[in-house]
């Protein structure tokens, strides 16, 4: 479905071009353009008459039909209150809207929305429309569109289209398309067809994981024909078997993705808090800054959310890192060896940052668009599909973690950081600039928080409260994993995430979370220094 | 309120009932007895089949190169570290492996750390007060009162450790040597049967050292003392019996002269000095 929708909007983008392409020399000024009537008819139609109106447009065979229907489907058809002319709305934000003439495609410029009377469409009609459009697309030469259309046909097959469909199926089609169409037809048969057709349908549907197939079978089970009901039941049972596996896989995936979110949120803290011992309550707000950077980028590069997102990875890091440096220089450097005071000060800072965002930007959440290549999901099979944005986040989390590991293990900075944290005086005497190391470390931690923000902007709200929602969890993860141990943070994050997702289905979201918390408390009893306790002198006391 | 009144008046009762820590039985054999003790920290064997006996009233010096397991041994005796195998007996009645630090301490084993640890926020006087042998359970502690005789005892020890002038200063401001002294003083307040003293003279001046030597030797006899020390001179000045530890087990034992002539010891230890 997602794909179809994106397709629709994609068409919309090309709408103007399309309209331009088909100028209307076909009709002289005197002659009345039939399109006029068709559109007027559509505009005036009551919900009941809509079907007919749409049919009329489709059957008119008018080359512009598709563009009209798309506009209609996207709620872009309006009627000029004075002239009664039906127009296509190209830009429908703000108080003045840009409109174009659907017949000639010429841009009619801006007009106050007060002058426009929208031609409304509702779900029911949109559903039908999608069916119709899909039907048209089935004949498209573009395999992509064709596949999408085939997908869209699921459950949209009805009396009028069954004939052409069967015809289509006689020609040779790409396997995927054929498979989909057969499924679609089978579903229709199972619902409408005669006993014999039903029987065949069931054999087709057996083993299909598609939800609509299951729906159809379920109905069949409820149906009056006992024989059909029995075989449908059998089919369902076999499907259920397959589903179990998929469900397990799904839960695991959910667990990992939640886990990776936790890891991302916590990993920066694992450095500022775990390595430097700064109880950084402003960590959440640094995450928030990263998220807002993404939003800002998208404002700077309208229309290219993808590019903006990629650019905001370095940008988000920089912004948060700079903020981090500012905090370190202005406050934390004066609190050496007084970690609890850092809690107090950074708490103050977090309050300031939050309110700053509220006053400067807005107390409202900001909308961050998900680029095409990140929306939708990776379809493994009809029952199991991995949501792309989370897939990316998992990957991103791992990359960030690997990066940090490299920095800490392999680079000079990492070495110095470890030296300074283990024995400041000694490190100093060996000519390490402790102050510089502090700045770098804190900047690094903050920057990583920024990265987390960039990722989170694709999953949750971008708003002033973003930080608060993650600060507690972050501390939990770091402590659970063992302060000062990056591996610990990784393992802890993924573990907690997975456990949470395993519990959730049968305990419910709230109880699951409570259980996880209790589990952490009890676990700390067993391992008072977390999963991976820090070794050596630093751990004493 | 009344509840607290009640508690308030119970201190005397408590002292009355305070069970004298069951006496250490040294009628037959030594006061401290370690047998086949083994400890390893992830792979590395810190203590390796260690056997050691300390007799009642003895003053024993333990020497050995770094990593010989001296401190670990003390940790085991005081219950901080649990050995993997072996047995540790205090007298012939108390199996130390079954007890935790406070129990062992109240049995009468006092310990002075390598790195002097005193309560820096408290005054010298208070440090000694806390160390003083007394009923150390919650309510007795809560309701404890400073009796004249206690104060006298503390002052006595203050004299001994030459900190009288700093009586009411926070221990945090003491010099390294003074902290050492204070900690020894705290040991004395505990009235232990066995003192474990880890590097008592580190960072002390010559005459401070001498005083320490006197003090420790004077203690011997009444109490048993185990001294771990690097400073050969100091060891010579006090040592009667010396034990040399090497790689977690006893390398040699005997008087200073015997030991210092032992070829093994010379090789692994004194050799480095010469």
């Amino acid at each position, binding site marked *: *479905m*997602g794909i*179809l929708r994106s397709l629709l*909007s994609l068409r919309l983008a090309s709408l103007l071009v399309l309209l331009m392409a088909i100028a209307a020399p076909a009709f002289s000024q005197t002659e009345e353009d039939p399109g006029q009537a068709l559109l007027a008819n559509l505009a005036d139609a009551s919900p009941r008459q809509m079907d007919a109106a749409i049919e009329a447009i489709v059957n008119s065979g008018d080359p512009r039909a598709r563009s009209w229907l798309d506009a209609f489907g*996207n*709620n872009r058809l309006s009627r000029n209150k004075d002239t009664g002319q039906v127009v296509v709305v190209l830009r*429908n*934000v*703000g*108080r003045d809207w840009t409109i174009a003439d659907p017949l000639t495609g010429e841009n009619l410029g801006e007009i106050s929305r007060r002058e426009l*009377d*929208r031609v*409304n*469409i*509702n*779900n*029911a009609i*949109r*559903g039908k429309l*999608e069916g119709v459009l899909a039907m048209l697309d089935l004949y498209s030469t573009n395999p992509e569109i064709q596949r999408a259309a085939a997908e869209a046909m699921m459950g949209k097959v009805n009396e009028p289209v069954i004939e052409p469909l069967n015809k289509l199926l006689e020609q040779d089609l790409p396997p995927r398309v054929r498979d989909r169409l057969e499924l679609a037809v089978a579903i229709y048969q199972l619902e409408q067809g005669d006993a014999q057709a039903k029987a065949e349908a069931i054999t087709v549907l057996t083993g299909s994981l598609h*939800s609509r197939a*299951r*729906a159809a079978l*379920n109905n069949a089970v*409820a149906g009056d024909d006992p024989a059909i009901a029995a075989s449908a039941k059998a089919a369902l049972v076999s499907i259920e078997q397959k589903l179990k596996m998929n469900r397990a896989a799904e839960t695991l995936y959910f667990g990992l993705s*939640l886990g990776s979110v936790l890891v991302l949120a916590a990993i920066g803290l694992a450095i500022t808090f775990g390595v430097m011992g700064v109880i950084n309550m402003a960590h959440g707000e640094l995450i928030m800054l990263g998220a807002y950077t993404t939003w800002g980028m998208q404002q700077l590069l309208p229309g290219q959310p993808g590019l903006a997102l990629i650019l905001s990875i370095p940008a988000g890091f920089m912004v948060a890192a700079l903020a981090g440096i500012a905090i370190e220089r202005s406050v934390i450097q004066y609190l050496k060896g007084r970690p609890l005071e850092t809690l107090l000060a950074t708490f103050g800072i977090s309050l300031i940052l*939050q*309110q700053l965002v*509220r*006053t*400067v930007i807005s*107390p*409202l*959440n900001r*909308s*961050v*668009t*998900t680029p095409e290549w990140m*929306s*939708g*999901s990776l379809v493994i099979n009809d029952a199991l*599909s991995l*949501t*792309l*944005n*989370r897939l990316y986040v998992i990957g991103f989390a791992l990359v960030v973690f690997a990066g940090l590991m490299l920095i800490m293990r392999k680079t000079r900075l990492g070495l110095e950081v470890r030296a300074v944290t283990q024995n400041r005086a000694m490190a100093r005497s060996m000519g390490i600039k402790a102050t510089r190391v502090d700045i770098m470390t804190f900047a690094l931690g903050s920057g990583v928080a920024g990265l987390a923000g960039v990722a989170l902007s694709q999953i*949750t*709200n*971008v*708003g*002033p*409260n973003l930080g*608060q*929602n993650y600060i507690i969890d972050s501390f939990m993860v770091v402590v659970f994993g063992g302060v000062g141990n990056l591996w610990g943070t990784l393992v802890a994050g993924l573990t907690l995430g997975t456990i949470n*997702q395993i519990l*959730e*289905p049968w305990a*419910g*979201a*709230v109880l699951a979370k409570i259980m996880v918390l209790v589990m952490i408390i009890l676990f700390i009893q067993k391992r008072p220094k977390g999963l991976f306790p820090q070794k050596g002198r630093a751990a004493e006391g | 309120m009344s509840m607290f009144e009640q508690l308030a008046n119970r201190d005397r009762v408590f002292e009355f009932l305070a069970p004298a820590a069951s006496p250490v039985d040294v009628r037959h054999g030594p006061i401290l007895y370690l047998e086949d003790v083994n400890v390893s920290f992830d792979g590395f064997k810190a203590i390796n089949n260690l056997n050691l006996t300390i007799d009642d009233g003895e003053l024993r010096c333990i020497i050995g190169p770094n990593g010989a397991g001296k401190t670990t041994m003390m940790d085991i005796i005081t219950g901080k570290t649990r050995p993997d195998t072996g047995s540790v007996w205090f007298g012939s009645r108390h199996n130390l492996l079954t007890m935790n630090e406070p129990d062992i301490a109240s049995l009468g084993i006092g310990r002075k750390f390598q790195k002097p640890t005193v309560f820096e926020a408290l005054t010298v006087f208070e440090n000694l007060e806390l160390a003083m042998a007394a009923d150390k359970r919650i309510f007795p502690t809560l309701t404890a009162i400073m009796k004249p005789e206690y104060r006298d005892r503390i002052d006595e020890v203050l004299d001994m450790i030459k900190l009288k002038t700093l009586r009411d200063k926070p221990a945090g401001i003491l010099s390294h040597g003074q902290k050492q002294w204070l900690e020894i003083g705290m040991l004395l307040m505990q009235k232990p049967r066995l003192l474990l003293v880890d590097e008592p003279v580190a960072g002390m001046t010559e005459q401070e050292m001498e005083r320490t030597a006197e003090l420790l030797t004077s203690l011997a006899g009444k109490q048993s003392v185990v001294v771990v020390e690097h400073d050969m001179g100091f060891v010579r000045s006090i040592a009667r019996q010396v034990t040399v530890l090497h790689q977690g087990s006893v390398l040699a034992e005997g008087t200073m002269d015997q030991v210092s002539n032992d070829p093994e010891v010379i090789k692994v230890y004194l050799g480095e000095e010469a």
Partner: protein
Amino acid sequence: MSIKKHVKLGLSALALSVSFHAMAAEDPIKVGILHSLSGTMAISETALKDTMEMLIEKQNEQGGVNGRMLEAVVVDPASNWPLFAEKARELLEKEKVDVIFGNWTSVSRKSVLPVVEELNGLLFYPVQYEGEESSENVFYTGAAPNQQAIPAVNYLKNELGVERWVLAGTDYVYPRTTNRILETYLKDMGVAEADIMINYTPFGHSDWQSIVSDIKTFGSAGKKTAVVSTINGDANVPFYRELGNQGISSSDIPVVAFSVGEQELSGIDTGPLVGHLAAWNYFMSVDNDANYDFIDAWVEFKGDDKAVTNDPMEAHYIGFNMYVEAVKKAGTTDVEAIKEAIIGVAVPNLTGGIATMMPNHHITKPVLIGEIQDNGQFSVVWETSSTVAGDAWSDFLPGSRDLIADWRAPMKCGNFNVKTGSCGASAGEQALADAE
């Protein structure tokens, strides 16, 4: 930004006090504004505070009421419920305000309620809520369940042929109550237990993966399925994102939300949400000149071309005008007089109808069903033929079936029990009075 606005407000007030200074001589009508400007609720409530400032500014430009200027007294209860009570007390006792416009969450209202009743103040509450309450001192300008939930369900059932229901909500009183009402209602309409799935999530819940996939499974049982969402504020963005990503489109499983308005949508990329529904009593997209004027004024006031309006803002607009009318009618701001006067006051709403204050202190509202569009607006797909009067006590809850509220003399009771023929609470009050 808001600082600047204060200045602006100040200036206009100044200008007025010059032009009308004969009137300005009279002390102004103090309007308390009790909306969170910080903390979690600031997201929703800040706009309402601005709305009130705008309305007051506009009113003053027209010379105030009865020749008296209006003066806004703004405080920040910081999304902290006890603080709401404290601030309400501050407004009434210290600032001596004549009326309070404020609150968003039920809990904040519950916390303010005793204060307002004790000090006999006036509170206009602009947000849709669970009902089950009618106070002599509170005027509920938002929707009661019968003005939002029930019609929405009817629409789904009749227009979209929904037979299977997911009632998903945040775990607090509004969703709990609404869902219990709906559950009873659906069962009365013959929906089977098995065809209703109820799910509650904590505030700000951000991980919807498994719940959405449950909904997906629930929806694949054959019958047309819909989600009735009482999910609150922040939790919505991740919820809708997850819907989009798991490929649940409005034509498969439509979601009708009661707490998602233009403001919430402004924080979401609506591309994937087209066709999902919301039930309100007002939409920014309503095609009506009064509405367009309001929007234009708002955009100008905010100085932001993208500023959106929403249902609670309209509620304040109505409430404010009702108060103004009542003051004119009573010729005074005396609380008792206003209480008398305001019942029956009718003012135009922004959807081309008339809102009337009912004796139970709720108002009449039209019910609109809108579909989300890709421009973050709703397109109205259905609306009630006439306005619906708010029901303080739901007919679908055992406890409150028999209760009615009528604040006119002689009844003057917020929970009159038609069975026992006695006024529940006040009977208790009486008992107390006797006891003392």
